[in-house]
């Protein structure tokens, strides 16, 4: 019996007019389940498989039946989605059907007009499509609260998105409050595309004591054609690279993208950060491709984003370069190709993104991961792809017992109820899964805090609202980190260029910083309270833009499998390895060769390879690399603990850098590898945990979290500027409070991985962890991936080849022309290009090395030197020029051509050049890096020089 046979004739007729005559797999399974009013359900099915209809058809069927029996007045079904854009999308699809059935539907979120809101209060739509935050807003509302009393079902879309954050926790409590209001069970239906721990997510939806049936369908029929490519540059790319001022490997990838877009109808290109989406857009614009395309990310205005979405859908543009802004199911038509630029880092991200291609039943999703020429990136891409094909998705990390959400929701409940018994509060809230183990003493502690902050009053076990309750509740509706947005404005027109996060502005942006937005480079001229004023940079040869985005963490499971792949290659011959990489990990030939070559090299240098059970401590004399493939969070945590212990042991500061596969330790003194091994063996898990918690307090991460939690719990005003908050004092004052505890929990659970590190130290201290020490003369191929990462330029978002960038800069410096004037006898004055000079620079006439370096247009200096040589009197300004020339001449005399190279750097005068040259940097690499640093410094401070 088909699922559609459960539905009314009216509905079936309507579906037929839309050309829908049979149910999709998820609809077949879910409709009969949901028809049972008492059954809660979690529907798991790929994107575009008809989940929305699977949930709504049976519910609208029921509503239609109710309508035939009595007049409807109030909200009956709530459809909650995490994104406003999704609200729009769902609305369009459902509106027609509801209209046909004589039912009303409306959307309500932050952007809904006052007019529309009033209309909803007076004539409530039967089905309300909304966001979790808006539900919070209307729950205590006078009128709307009444209309909510008739709700019999709630559909929560993209549950996995909400589950992973406090939005989900807040929604849970919101649903408990709703059910308390309705005073009857509400049917809960969750829709999710990809979840690793379905049991927990089902409990999140249903609460700790309700049964939720999990319905899976459609994963087999979803065909995916995925592969990993690693474009390498040929001559054409190298030539183009010089023209675009873009590294050759990056150019090869760009060229491949253009090629792929040109041979497909509609392509989505995903990047991992906004900054890189902008850079790629800028470079693609520069290459003038034979198609239209757009850039799409969260910092662009709503209009720009909607326009980009429609252009792709209508076929006006062929490609869209996007970030996670396009991951969720916004309907942009049928993209037939998804390109992921460099490793997507997480399986769920890979699935969500590749799922945007072939958005429809029975279509094959084509996806290509374009890996960078970096061993980690290529292998990781292959591993993620394999896990994606097997649907091995990461678990949603549900925040448990977050105090800030509880505090906020207690306020909400007080607005709902006016007053409530302590025991009733505990009973209602502990029904929500994240608070299932909430104890009376925990609740009391939070209430005490709230009473102190005048958010509530407590007397004889009764909790009542206070003067501040309402204001606090409405000011803190959103759990999304209260990141203030700062406008970037064009300094001339004062029009908005885009929006930056406050955190980013305070940590990374300074006057002179250059960043790219909407395909154009802008330089920061000044930073004001609410605004960053910028001017367009016309010189396209800008230093690589800085816009530091958060790198997506690589999960432990992925990192561990990457290490398994490397170990597998170590044990096989070339042909077997190639077969493995091709068959299991879908790597192209170039990618296979790159991986095999690098793994074999590393093996010959280290003798063995690391794994999750077996670490290698590599001592390359100027530093230590701990090879440990444990993922981003574990390595971040492990690095913190080991560095803290080493610092205590050695009495000097230890610097730490980490990536998902290894941790780098450096210091001003030599670190013995045995010390690192000892640290791993001498401390047990509990001790490691204590040290971790002590150390975390001093980190920027914790400070940042504390500010966010502080804002959410009302101890820091929302509009307080980060720069003005006395954070250290506040942290000390609130030590031991729910605010402190929550900030610590956030860091330990969400940013770090305390549990796994405890486990590592337990194994280490009981001899169950294999640790090998290897000494190398210089960093191994694996170690170089982090040693060079440490000094790479800040092209965050793309792991690029520093060597390429330095070479390009060197070309520019060598092409610089100077007027060289001999200061000994003034008998030589010549304009020369740096590249044509010998290492030793001397006057061809008298052999003197005292050669002054001047701009080619300066004809005055020679005259000044002639005057000086002739013993004539110099004016004050001539004397000043002469002395300056003398300084430069000294540098040229001491350092020769190297001095010319340094002086060719933008804004680098004699003093800066002397500073750069003094340490006697012998290698070209270090010298170029110092020059680049000085150029950046100049750009930062240039506005103050008043040119």
């Amino acid at each position, binding site marked *: 019996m088909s699922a559609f046979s459960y539905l009314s004739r009216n509905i079936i007729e309507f579906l037929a007019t839309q050309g829908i005559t049979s149910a999709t797999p998820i609809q077949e399974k879910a409709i009969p389940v949901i028809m049972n009013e008492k059954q809660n359900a979690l529907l798991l099915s790929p994107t575009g498989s008809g989940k929305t209809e699977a949930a709504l058809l049976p519910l609208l069927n029921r509503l239609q039946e109710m309508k035939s029996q009595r007049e409807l007045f109030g909200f009956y079904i709530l459809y909650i989605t995490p994104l406003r854009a999704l609200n729009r999308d769902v609305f369009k699809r459902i509106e027609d059907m509801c209209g046909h059935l004589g039912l009303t539907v409306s959307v309500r979120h932050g952007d809904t007009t006052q007019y529309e809101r009033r209309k909803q209060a*007076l004539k409530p739509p039967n089905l309300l499509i909304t966001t979790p935050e808006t539900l919070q807003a209307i729950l205590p509302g006078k*009128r709307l609260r*009444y209309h909510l009393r008739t709700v019999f079902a709630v559909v929560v879309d993209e549950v996995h998105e909400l589950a992973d954050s406090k939005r989900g926790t807040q929604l849970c409590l919101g649903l408990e409050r709703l059910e308390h209001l309705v005073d009857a069970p509400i049917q809960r239906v969750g829709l999710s595309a990809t979840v690793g721990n379905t049991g927990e997510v089902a409990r999140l939806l249903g609460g700790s004591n309700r049964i939720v049936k999990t319905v899976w369908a459609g994963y087999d029929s979803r065909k995916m054609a995925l592969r990993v490519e690693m474009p390498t540059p040929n001559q054409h790319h190298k030539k183009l690279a010089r023209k675009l001022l873009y590294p050759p490997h990056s150019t090869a990838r760009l060229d491949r993208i253009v090629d792929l877009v040109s041979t497909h109808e509609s392509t989505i290109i995903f990047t991992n950060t906004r900054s890189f989406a902008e850079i790629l857009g800028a470079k693609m614009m520069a290459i003038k491709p034979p198609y239209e395309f757009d850039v799409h990310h969260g910092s662009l205005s709503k209009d720009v984003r909607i326009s980009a979405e429609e252009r792709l859908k209508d076929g006006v543009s062929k490609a869209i370069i996007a970030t996670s802004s396009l991951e969720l199911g916004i309907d942009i038509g049928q993209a037939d190709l998804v390109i992921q630029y460099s490793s997507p880092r997480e399986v769920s991200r890979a699935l969500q993104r590749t799922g945007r291609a072939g958005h429809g039943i029975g279509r094959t999703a084509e996806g290509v991961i374009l890996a960078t020429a970096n061993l980690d990136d290529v292998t990781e891409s292959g591993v993620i792809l394999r896990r994606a094909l097997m649907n091995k998705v990461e678990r949603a990390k549900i925040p448990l017992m977050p105090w800030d959400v509880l505090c906020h929701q207690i306020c909400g409940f007080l607005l709902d109820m006016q007053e409530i018994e302590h025991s009733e509060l505990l009973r209602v809230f502990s029904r929500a899964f994240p608070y299932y183990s909430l104890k009376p003493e925990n609740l009391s502690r939070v209430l005490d805090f709230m009473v102190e902050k005048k958010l509530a009053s407590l007397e004889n076990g009764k909790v009542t609202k206070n003067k501040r309750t309402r204001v606090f509740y409405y000011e803190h509706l959103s759990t999304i980190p209260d990141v203030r947005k700062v406008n970037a404005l064009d300094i001339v027109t004062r029009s908005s260029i885009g929006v930056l996060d406050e955190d980013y502005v305070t940590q990374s942006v300074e006057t002179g910083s250059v960043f790219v937005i909407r395909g154009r480079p802008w330089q920061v001229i000044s930073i004001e309270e609410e605004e960053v004023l910028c001017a367009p940079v016309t010189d396209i040869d800008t230093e690589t833009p800085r816009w530091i985005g958060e790198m997506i963490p690589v999960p432990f499971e992925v990192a561990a499998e990457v290490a398994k792949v490397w170990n597998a290659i170590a044990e096989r011959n070339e042909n077997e390895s190639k077969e493995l990489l091709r068959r299991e990990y879908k790597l192209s030939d170039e990618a296979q060769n790159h991986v095999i070559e690098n793994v074999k090299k590393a093996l010959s240098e280290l003798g063995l390879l690391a794994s999750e059970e077996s670490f290698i401590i590599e001592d390359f004399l100027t530093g230590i690399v701990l090879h440990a493939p444990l993922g981003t969070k574990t390595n971040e945590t492990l690095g913190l603990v080991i560095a803290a212990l080493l610092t205590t042991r050695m009495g000097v500061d230890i610097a730490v850098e980490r990536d998902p596969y290894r941790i780098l330790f450096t210091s001003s003194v030599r670190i013995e590898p045995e010390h690192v091994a000892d640290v791993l063996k001498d401390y047990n898990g509990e001790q490691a945990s204590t040290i971790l918690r002590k150390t975390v307090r001093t980190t920027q991460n914790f400070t940042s979290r504390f500010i966010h939690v502080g804002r959410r719990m009302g101890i820091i005003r929302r509009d307080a500027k980060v720069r003005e908050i006395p954070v250290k004092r506040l942290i000390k004052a609130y030590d031991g409070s729910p605010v402190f505890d929550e900030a610590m929990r956030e860091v330990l659970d969400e940013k770090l991985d305390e549990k796994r590190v405890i486990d590592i130290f337990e194994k280490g201290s009981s001899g169950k962890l294999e640790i090998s020490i290897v000494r190398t003369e210089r960093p191994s191929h694996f170690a170089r991936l982090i040693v060079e990462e440490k000094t790479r330029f800040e092209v965050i978002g793309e792991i690029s080849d520093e060597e390429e960038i330095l070479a390009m800069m060197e070309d520019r410096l060598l092409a610089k022309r100077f007027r060289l004037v001999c200061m000994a006898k003034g008998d030589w004055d010549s304009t020369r290009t740096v590249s044509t000079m010998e290492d030793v620079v001397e006057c061809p006439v008298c052999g003197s090395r005292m050669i002054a370096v001047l701009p080619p247009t300066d004809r005055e200096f020679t005259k000044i030197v002639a005057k000086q040589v002739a013993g004539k009197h110099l004016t004050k300004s001539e004397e000043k020029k002469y002395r300056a020339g003398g300084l430069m001449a000294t540098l040229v005399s001491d350092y020769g051509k190297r001095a010319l190279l340094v002086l060719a750097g933008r804004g680098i005068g004699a003093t800066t050049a002397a500073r750069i040259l003094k340490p006697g940097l012998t290698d070209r690499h270090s010298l170029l890096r110092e020059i680049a640093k000085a150029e950046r410094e100049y750009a930062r401070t240039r506005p103050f020089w008043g040119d």
Partner: protein
Amino acid sequence: MMSSDDLFLRAFENSAGHMANLDSVRSIVEGLIGHGHSLEYIIQSLEREMEEAEVTLRTDLRILINEARHLVRRMTSA
């Protein structure tokens, strides 16, 4: 068995918190109770009031009617 007046007053108390024009509704309610009218009569009177009322008052009255009918349903099903 609850009288119509009692039931109607209960409905008013339950829904008063959701009213935008509480005073106006209260005076309408006071005008309708104490005359021994049936609940159906009271509801019809309210519906007549709705015809001429301003839009927010109309919604208030609708809420009140709804609540009264809801209470009746609960009583009859109990």
